[in-house]
């Protein structure tokens, strides 16, 4: 599988799952995909359909209403599929931790492979996070 993982690490297609975020992380994700940072250099591409995705970028706390949808999206994604939690929300719940409509951590809904903490994380931090994912893939 070494050869295949190398191919996978050079062509990561990301799908953006906004699981009830406050929208800051989403704006930073969109910043990441602008020509200034040019992630197409590494083969990273934003896709519109979850069927084409290799990585799900989850931002937000996944509240009661959204959590089943997030789980459904993860089940519909073709495997191998990795989940990256963008921002502090998927990692710890941030300031929404004790909110009435938050069922718990996102990790209880879907397995998360990598966290990029920050509120919101800078695009540089996200690139570093994805590079770490690639290193894991390359062994």
């Amino acid at each position, binding site marked *: 599988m070494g050869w295949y993982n190398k191919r*996978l690490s050079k062509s990561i297609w990301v799908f953006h799952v906004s699981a009830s975020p406050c929208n800051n992380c989403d704006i930073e994700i969109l910043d990441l995909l602008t*020509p200034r940072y*040019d992630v197409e250099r590494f083969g990273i591409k934003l896709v519109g359909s979850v069927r084409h995705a290799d990585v799900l970028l989850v931002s937000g706390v996944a509240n009661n209403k959204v959590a089943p949808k997030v789980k459904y999206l993860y089940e519909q994604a073709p*495997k191998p599929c990795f989940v990256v939690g963008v921002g502090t929300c998927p990692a710890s719940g941030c300031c929404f931790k004790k909110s009435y409509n938050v069922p718990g951590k996102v990790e209880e809904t879907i397995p998360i492979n990598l966290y990029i903490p920050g509120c919101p994380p800078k695009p540089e931090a996200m690139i570093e996070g994805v590079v770490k994912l690639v290193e894991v893939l390359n062994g």
Partner: protein
Amino acid sequence: MKIDYIFYLLIFPGLLFISILGLLIGWVDRKVSARFQFRVGPPVFQNFNDFFKLLGKETILIKEGVITIFIIAPFIAFAMIVLVSSIIGISLFYSTSFGGDLIVVMYLLMINSVMIILGGSSTGNVYSSLGAGREIKLLLADELAFILICLVPIIKSGFQLQLDGIVSSQIQYGSYIGSISGFISFVIGLLCIQAKMALPPFHIPEAETEIVEGPFMEYSGTLLAFWKLNGFMLYVTFPFLLILLFWGGFNPEGPGIIWFILKYLLIVLLIIVIKNTNPRIRIDTALNFFWKYASVIALVAVVLAVFGY
């Protein structure tokens, strides 16, 4: 004789050549597009990485809908593109006919669009069927103009339907692009192939921002890999057809190879420039454009060709 045909179909102008050149030209497209947006762009083997990655991914099949058509549509489209590329390539590179003339080529080129329509509408997904419907409308829009411009080289070569006849007539009397009707139909042909490949400004069926890849939305893994490969192979087929019909074909002697490569790259560059400088148009605008203007101009070109201009 039989072994020759297998070589033609599988290796030189056929499968291997078309797919490798298509993936490389797909990289040229992405790189030049990136330079248009002041980016760096992907590395050379990006499309190969994408293709092999998609081959290894899980292929999710649909629960409802017509599953057979869902599976075979990309493969039929792939086979048809390989076949039509071999027919065009053999006429270009070997100056012999390979069991098919221009009418067969026109039919086979349409099958790709038909398969996109079938594959898209077989899934039962709303966005996919919307995309398939748009593909039908786009096919109806561009097909008339495309058939009309294909008539021009037939008329100018003295009513020959064989591809090698058209090429040899051009070698004898000069390229058709030098004449008025030939030039007009070349320009219309460039716009038609833009629509047939569903590239911007005619990427109405795929429209990532509204109907998320349209007919390809439900596809994943191997099937998606073949759809992507089909898209890249069309970057080879259509420019080759345009060179064959209007721009003098391929001359194997002397600097002919360099001229051929330059002609090919110029057509691809024109496609990429049109792609990057135009926003997506609506379906009614596309129909208006092709039926009111492009078809009329193509008809004028046919009339001019009849009178020998």
